[in-house]
């Protein structure tokens, strides 16, 4: 195992430029699971970001919020300004328990690219953007909704690090984050939904329902068009177009499709006239 303890963002980007295979580590809450016996982890070169205070930032600007790459769930939960973006503290509070929330970062949640990630759907429902930095390429901004090309396939070049996440500040008249797991605390999502409605339209995002967290284009279109929906089954075709959940140790694809339809219907029925 080799370890580079980055002393500044510039130093980290320079290291990543010369060693693109190096694995960044921030809060370690994904990287360190199974660590003692995970021999492939010990073969890696690690790039420690944890001491880069310049990334441990939360800045409210005029029309967006910027979460530095080391901003944690706890930083958001304890910051009252996030009542403007309530899905973020709501999602953060469902991640593991306090000991995970104090360490886990939003950027790490994005980069880890689990289909079950809970931070990602909340961010995606708000049209968040990922800010990527590299030594030679400067800054590149990619919409989070376009960030995943497939299971653990990221729109990030080997020499790039995530430096920040930007979340537009918009007025939302409807929004919610719903997580279905085996128990209330410390459970991985079996079926997840985040949605938000603003003057930009509907954003309906699913997690644990496809190889990546993703927006549900067909469902968004159906809801925006005001197509009559008399019950969860009327959503099934659109959901099947958008989502391909799998069977795994936590659940089955059939269960996930059925529950997602019901969660979505009961979330939107009170707020959409087209839902009866």
């Amino acid at each position: 195992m080799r370890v580079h303890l980055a002393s500044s963002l510039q130093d980290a980007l320079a290291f990543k430029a010369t060693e693109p295979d190096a694995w960044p580590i921030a809060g370690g809450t994904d990287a360190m699971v199974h660590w003692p016996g995970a021999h492939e982890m010990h073969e890696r070169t690690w790039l420690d970001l944890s001491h880069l205070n310049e990334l441990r930032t939360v800045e409210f600007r005029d029309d967006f919020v910027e979460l530095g790459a080391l901003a944690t769930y706890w930083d958001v939960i304890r910051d009252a300004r996030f009542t403007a973006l309530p899905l973020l503290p709501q999602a953060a509070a469902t991640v593991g328990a306090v000991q995970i929330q104090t360490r886990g970062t939003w950027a790490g949640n994005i980069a880890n690219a689990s289909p079950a990630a809970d931070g990602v759907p909340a961010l995606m429902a708000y049209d968040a953007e990922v800010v990527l930095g590299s030594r030679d390429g400067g800054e590149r901004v990619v919409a989070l909704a376009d960030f995943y090309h497939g299971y653990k396939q990221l729109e990030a070049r080997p020499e790039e690090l995530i430096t920040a996440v930007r979340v537009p500040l918009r007025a939302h008249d409807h929004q919610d984050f719903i997580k279905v797991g085996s128990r209330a605390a410390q459970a991985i999502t079996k079926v997840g939904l985040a949605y938000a409605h603003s003057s930009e339209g509907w954003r309906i995002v699913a997690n644990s329902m496809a190889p990546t967290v993703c927006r549900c284009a067909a469902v968004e279109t159906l809801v925006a068009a005001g197509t009559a929906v008399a019950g969860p089954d009327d959503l099934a075709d659109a959901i099947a177009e958008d989502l391909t959940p799998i069977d795994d140790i936590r659940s089955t694809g059939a269960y996930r499709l059925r529950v997602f339809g019901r969660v979505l219907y009961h979330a939107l029925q009170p707020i959409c006239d087209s839902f009866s």
Partner: protein
Amino acid sequence: MNDRPIQIEFQLNGELRTLEVEPRARLLDVLRYEIDCPGTKEGCGEGECGACTVLLDGLPTNSCLVPAWQARGREVVTIESVTPEDVSRMLDAGTTQCGACTPGVVMTARWAEANPELLAQFDLRQLMAGNLCRCTGYDGIIDGIELPSGQEAD
């Protein structure tokens, strides 16, 4: 930068420590086996159980998920800093049975006691949800936590 030990310095229970750690050593391993603070326990080793909870820069942290080199320059507070008087209410309330979870429970509980403003946002059971206990059924744990007067645990 190779497989060599890494020199780190950190505050442990208010005392500056300087030592060399193996790159793969976790904070938990260093506490238990390098500096003779075996009070912190290992349960699951993967962030689920909270037995290894310490306060890192004042916040509850699972020391099994922290590479020791990430503790450089930080303040670490462990169960070794706690006196019997600090936990007298817990001893009366039946907070501990087999004791495997107890060091972690005590550290999270002391953080909650020291930050009573958190109770405006969370209930105590939420704050303690990352500390699993197979013995007490949790009521003894909740009863053992000293809340500011006027606050009732549910």
